């Protein structure tokens, strides 16, 4: 075998795993910019980058096309699905279920055109502009996604002289027409079939491995079932449901609830099932199809599902409990109930552990509920069904749901969020309001007006409340550097306002504790006059940038760590973040500024700056992890701004960076920063054009009276 670099490799056995390519319909204009397939991460990212107010046309009303369409519609994109057949997902659904699915998608704001033939893709300056149908309709679009199936990649096999049809021909042992060459995956054709779902591919790989080891194994095509992963569209299909001689239907319809069930029966055996709207029993029906169960005795009540077979209705857990050990739970990975039970017995006692040991529910995720039910049945009272982490009692939505809604539906005020997300209280509570206030100002810095009444007192009064109701005042000391004049002004203020405690903080600045609310504007005015501003020691925002003395004084310093710290603090101060944000810059790996336990840390080295994130030194103690090393201060500042903006836009309120990183993964953060760094920096700067200012000076000017009592009636008589 010869590689593209001309290297020649000898083999005893060779395995083809060349996969498949998405099929691109060769319409005129299919090579325009903005015409993509739906195949890889890059395609997905292109779709996700399409913001609200954009238009997208999806060609193909199959599984993949509809999942793409629903995903984009949920993000506010105006989506039209163009499908050549008479109803959607015609390979998995009959016409009635296709109709219900179409109705549900139209309700989600998606335009669906069936029996529609694409004629030409129209462009403008090399970029897609619209799709032209053969009836003359023009569908304008900024992005056109073709999701019309795959073609096995057989070019190399064909050139090598292997037998090739639609795919590379293989026998039951996955061996091709050449005894020393095997093939697996989407590139193969087995018994006339090609494969696009993941479950049979895993089976093929197992068979190929055994064949290679000289063991007997046989690949058998199994019945496959399909579920659509679109929220609110519960559908299931399995087996063969085409009309044919000797086949009978049992159909159940409940139009008001949008429920449809159809079973196709041949000689007392279920051959196929289509379910829409209520698919809770789908696994049971799938089992009947796969096991070719004789249903003659239960035919009368068959359509109502397992709960109505043989007497009293069963609860869902009992249905799962009644499943045999070889009942398949996870179709993607071919995991049976017995394997999950064994994993639980071996110590996997929650969903995450079962998923990591067996892979069950680890691919598409639709069987997650079922896996949880197996856990519940097996563990009994020891299992606690995880509740979805809703924000608070005011809503049934999670933080992630609400953030998505704010972005995709362009919700720019708190009443808009309450309305569109179905808040159950008139004006939220102390838990959700601060979170919503942050999400809105982070996503709409220009449009949204910060709401002080939705902020915790510290952020409303720009000082930290103490247990006796007094406040603490911390002026900013950029990078921990101060001057004799600043120290004199702080000392004078401490005297003048009779501050009981003066403390040096861990963030390299000075805390004046025990200041009365009424005195806050005056002490701020005095500190402002000496050139000092708020240190935001009270905010879910940038706190401090701790530094060491770096090359200015230290004999080990490699860079000007103090200077970089000051620059960073001047760029980032005033920014609001999901939780507090502390930075550190150390001038050498001795790390005197303790940068590696900060939210964002910089370690200076001879060749540049190592930027790492996700440290913690509170309830959890964690070391930061490296994002990137850069050569210049400017690059370091940009990377830190990009990471901060990514964190602002995506993290759950009150998650520090390390918690957020635990959810999205460091690799994702690195990719985003690398791929859209400049755009993130731009958005950070846009937000900072509003928020990079001293709130103390502003409150002294405009709100000083709010710090005084509304009235002083100490001399007023009771009678």
């Amino acid at each position, binding site marked *: 075998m010869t590689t593209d670099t001309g290297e020649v490799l000898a083999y005893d056995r060779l395995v083809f795993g060349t996969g498949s390519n998405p099929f691109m319909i060769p319409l005129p204009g299919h090579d325009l910019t903005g015409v993509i397939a739906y195949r890889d991460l890059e395609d997905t990212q292109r779709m996700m980058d399409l913001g609200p107010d954009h238009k997208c046309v999806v060609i193909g009303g199959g599984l993949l096309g509809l999942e793409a369409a629903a995903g984009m519609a949920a993000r506010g994109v105006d989506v039209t699905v163009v499908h050549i057949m008479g109803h959607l997902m015609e390979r998995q659904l009959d016409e009635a279920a296709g109709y219900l699915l179409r109705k549900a998608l139209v309700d989600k704001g998606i335009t669906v055109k069936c029996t529609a033939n694409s004629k030409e893709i129209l462009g403008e300056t090399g970029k897609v502009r619209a799709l032209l149908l053969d009836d003359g309709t023009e569908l304008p679009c900024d992005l056109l996604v073709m999701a019309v199936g795959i073609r096995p990649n057989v070019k190399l096999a064909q050139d090598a002289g292997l037998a090739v049809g639609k795919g590379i021909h293989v026998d039951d042992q996955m061996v091709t027409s050449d005894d020393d060459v095997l093939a697996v995956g989407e590139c193969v054709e087995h018994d006339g079939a090609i494969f696009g779902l993941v479950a049979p591919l895993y089976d093929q790989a197992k068979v190929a491995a055994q064949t290679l080891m000289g063991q007997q194994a046989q690949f058998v095509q199994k019945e496959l079932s399909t579920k659509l992963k679109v929220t609110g569209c519960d559908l299931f299909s399995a087996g063969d449901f085409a009309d044919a001689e000797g086949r009978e239907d049992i159909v159940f319809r409940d139009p008001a609830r949008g429920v449809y069930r159809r079973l196709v029966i041949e000689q007392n055996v279920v051959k196929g099932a289509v379910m829409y709207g209520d698919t809770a029993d789908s696994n049971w029906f799938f089992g009947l199809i796969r096991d070719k169960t004789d249903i003659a005795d239960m035919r009368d009540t068959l359509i109502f599902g397992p709960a109505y077979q043989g007497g009293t209705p069963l609860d869902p857990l009992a249905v799962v409990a009644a499943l045999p050990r070889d009942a398949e739970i996870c179709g993607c990975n071919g995991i049976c109930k017995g394997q999950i039970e064994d994993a639980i017995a071996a110590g996997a006692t929650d969903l995450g552990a079962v998923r990591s040991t067996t892979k069950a529910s680890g691919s598409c995720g639709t069987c997650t509920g079922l896996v949880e039910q197996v856990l519940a049945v097996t563990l009994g009272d020891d299992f606690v069904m995880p509740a979805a982490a809703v924000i608070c009692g005011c809503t049934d939505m999670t933080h992630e749901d609400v953030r998505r809604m704010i972005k995709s539906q362009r919700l720019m005020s708190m009443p808009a969020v309450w309305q569109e997300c179905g808040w159950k209280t008139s004006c*939220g*509570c102390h838990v959700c309001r601060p979170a919503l206030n942050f999400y809105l100002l982070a996503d709409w810095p220009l449009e949204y007006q910060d709401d002080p009444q939705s902020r915790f*007192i510290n952020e409303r009064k720009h000082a930290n409340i103490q247990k006796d109701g007094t406040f603490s005042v911390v002026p900013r000391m950029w990078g921990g550097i101060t001057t004799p004049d600043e120290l004199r002004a702080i000392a004078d203020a401490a005297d003048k306002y009779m501050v009981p405690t003066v403390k040096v903080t861990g963030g390299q600045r000075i805390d004046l504790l025990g200041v009365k609310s009424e005195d806050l504007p005056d002490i701020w005015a005095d500190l402002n006059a000496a050139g000092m501003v708020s240190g935001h020691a009270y905010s879910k925002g940038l706190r401090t940038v701790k530094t060491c003395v770096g090359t200015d004084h230290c004999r080990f310093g490699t860079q000007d760590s103090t200077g970089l710290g000051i620059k960073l603090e001047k760029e980032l101060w005033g920014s609001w973040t999901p939780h507090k944000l502390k930075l550190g810059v150390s001038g050498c790996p001795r790390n005197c500024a303790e940068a590696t336990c900060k939210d964002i840390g910089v370690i200076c080295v001879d060749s540049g700056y190592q930027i790492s994130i996700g440290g913690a030194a509170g309830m959890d103690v964690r070391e930061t992890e490296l994002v990137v090393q850069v050569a210049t201060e400017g690059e370091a500042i940009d990377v830190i701004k990009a990471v901060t903006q990514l964190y602002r836009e995506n993290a759950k309120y009150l998650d520090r960076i390390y918690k957020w990183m635990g959810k999205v993964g460091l690799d994702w953060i690195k990719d985003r920063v690398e791929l859209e760094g400049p755009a993130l920096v731009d958005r950070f700067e846009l937000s900072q054009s509003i928020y990079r200012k001293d709130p103390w000076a502003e409150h002294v000017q405009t709100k000083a009276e709010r710090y005084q*009592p509304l009235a002083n*009636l*100490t001399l007023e008589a*009771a009678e």
Partner: protein
Amino acid sequence: MSDWIDIAPLDDVPQRGARMIKTALGCVAVFRTAEDEVFALDNACPHKGGPLAEGIVHGKSVTCPLHNWVISLETGDAQGADEGRVATYPARVESGRILLDRAFLRPQSKDGVAA
């Protein structure tokens, strides 16, 4: 008999907010809801004496800034699992002005009702 004292313009208290009034016997918090109702309560949480006027106002409740006790503005009762009560005083709005009954200037009996 009621004896209403004119305290301040309604607009001096923000919606979903509060301000504090000093009296010879301690501080009273005046709350204004999103619907422009006003309520007056002692400015001390029954838990650890936290200043309720600095709390977040939601519906007809306020959350204490120290440990998140939620207090009903109508009854002064701690909500949920917490137990305790804050004294409340008659308050109303007339012609855009906040009026409080003079009761809030009198010493309180133990059960939180004006003597």
